[in-house]
């Protein structure tokens, strides 16, 4: 009797996971394995035959300037987005936590960019950036600052892509910090105040250490998100000018679906996996020393 139920339970268990599992296996798990295999070939997606080339794709990538440039760009983009996004999100959250009314309204407005389609948002921003008649240069000029060619010049293209991304993500980090700040025990802050701590002291010695788990979580999330950024680059710069905004991910799509260098592209994708996982591990290691968890 007991045995029969457990057979039935096994059957039920697999029946219930089957629909989602089959999709995950066919479109996620198997493709990752296949990517690893393809990265050792010279296939071009069309030819019926291909050769095994061993580590050639990896070696040539790691030696190529294009890949090095893409790697640098990815790193600049990740840091350029993550650091300001966290600082802005945190600052707004701190100040908003002092607002006795209207917080819901402010929160809604500042979070709205996060749910907006990146393609549509980037199109609007491309018009804001327009060098000749765009509103951004007009505003800069009117306060005496020089304009810029924004997404159309090599020196400022990355900055343009970064700005849009910060605009879109800051509301997301703000929401997390609001939650984190709300959970800081008020007794701790009151005790500090009685001891004569200034607001800045309270911020640096209580609030910031207390929200460090949130900061850690957001650093990881932001790193992963920036590694996957594509839409804004596609609309604003297509990786240009002269590769100035070509990230590893963008490079992958160019090689995979415009040049059909399947083997090489698969190698790029796997290097991207290694980079993402590697960065997450480094950040976790750093967090062991800096993140304060409630015990």
């Amino acid at each position, binding site marked *: 009797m007991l045995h029969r139920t457990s057979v039935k*339970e*096994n059957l*039920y*268990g697999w029946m*219930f*996971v089957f*629909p*989602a*599992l089959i*999709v*995950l296996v*066919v*479109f*996620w798990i198997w*493709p*990752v394995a*296949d*990517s690893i295999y393809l990265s050792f070939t010279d296939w071009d*997606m069309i030819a019926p035959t291909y050769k095994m080339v061993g580590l050639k794709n990896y070696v040539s990538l790691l030696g190529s300037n294009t890949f090095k440039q893409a790697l640098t760009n990815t790193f600049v983009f990740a840091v350029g987005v993550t650091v300001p996004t966290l600082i802005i999100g945190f600052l*707004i959250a701190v*100040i*908003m936590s*002092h*607002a006795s009314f*209207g917080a819901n309204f*402010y929160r*809604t*407005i500042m*979070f*709205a*960019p996060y749910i*907006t*389609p*990146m*393609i*549509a*948002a980037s*199109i*609007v*921003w*491309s*018009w*804001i950036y327009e060098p000749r*008649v*765009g509103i951004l240069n*007009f505003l800069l000029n009117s306060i005496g600052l020089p304009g810029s060619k924004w997404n159309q010049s090599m020196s400022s293209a990355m900055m343009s892509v970064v700005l849009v991304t910060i*605009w879109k993500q*800051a509301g997301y980090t703000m*929401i997390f910090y609001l939650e984190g700040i709300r959970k800081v025990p008020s007794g701790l802050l009151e005790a500090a105040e009685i001891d004569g701590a200034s607001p800045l002291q309270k911020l640096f010695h209580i609030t910031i250490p207390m929200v460090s788990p949130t900061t850690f*979580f957001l650093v990881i999330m932001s790193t992963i998100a920036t590694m996957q950024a594509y839409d804004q680059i596609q*609309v604003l710069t297509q990786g240009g000018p002269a590769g100035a905004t070509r990230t590893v991910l963008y490079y992958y*799509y160019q090689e*995979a679906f415009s040049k059909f260098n399947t083997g090489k*592209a698969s190698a790029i*994708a*796997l290097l*991207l*996996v290694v980079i*993402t*996982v590697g960065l997450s591990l480094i950040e976790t290691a750093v967090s062991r020393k800096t993140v304060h968890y409630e015990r």
Partner: protein
Amino acid sequence: MKNVKILRNAKLIMTHLFLVFCCVVFAFPFLWMITNSLKTKDEIWAVPPQVLPAVPQWMNYSDVFKDSIFMRYMWNSMYTSILITAITLVTSAMFAYALTNIRFKGKNILFAVIMVTYIVPTAATNIPAYIILSKVKLIDTHFGLILSTCSSIFNIFYFRTMFMQISKDILGAARVDGAGHGTILWRIVAPMSTSSFMTLGILGFIGCYNSYVWPSLILRTKSKYVISIGLQLFFSTDGAYGLKWGTIMASCCVTIFPLLLLFFIGQKWIMNGITSDSGVKA
């Protein structure tokens, strides 16, 4: 005493001034999009930039709505997103139910494999997934798009955390009364987790509606495009030379509006879903 009060008021005013300023900055692209969508071509290209149009050009909008291909993209996005979201909800709930309430062999290994898959960037799956779809002749079909995206590890994790919080006593009692797993999931567990379904439903829809890369890779026929591809195409063919900026801004407005509406209505669930961070708690 009076000074303290003045100081406190000054602080309050500064706080709100700062927050209003931030709101203006964050909302500015939306406002700029709306005013530009109502301008004539000359007004759009005016130096210095004009804030408001002299006469609102509602024409730009009627152009968008009359453009049958644009409405087609909109419909394609809507119906595929709804189907993907609904199917994903069902399959993820079943998966999470099995993880939390059914004892079966291989469960732990299964969970570990899913966990690892979660951190892999989508890009690493694109080429083989593309090849599989073309082998089964589902490239350039909405069915292929739906099939390849109708499961979500995030949803599974989220449901798992929520289902674990439901008392085992109730479910045990139902089992004793002879209820099957299907009945328990859809008659007891699901009604007790409506807010999780709402949260994941809304987040899922937003994700599908906004997605661009994968649909742009597998959809080739123009009439099958989803809105994000259509918008990008419209922008790159008509936008670069500034021919129809008013209409482009109007179509951005039309694209974004349903989402903003959904966001304002479903805010409570969206915020719950985002900050619950059950997606990361294993």
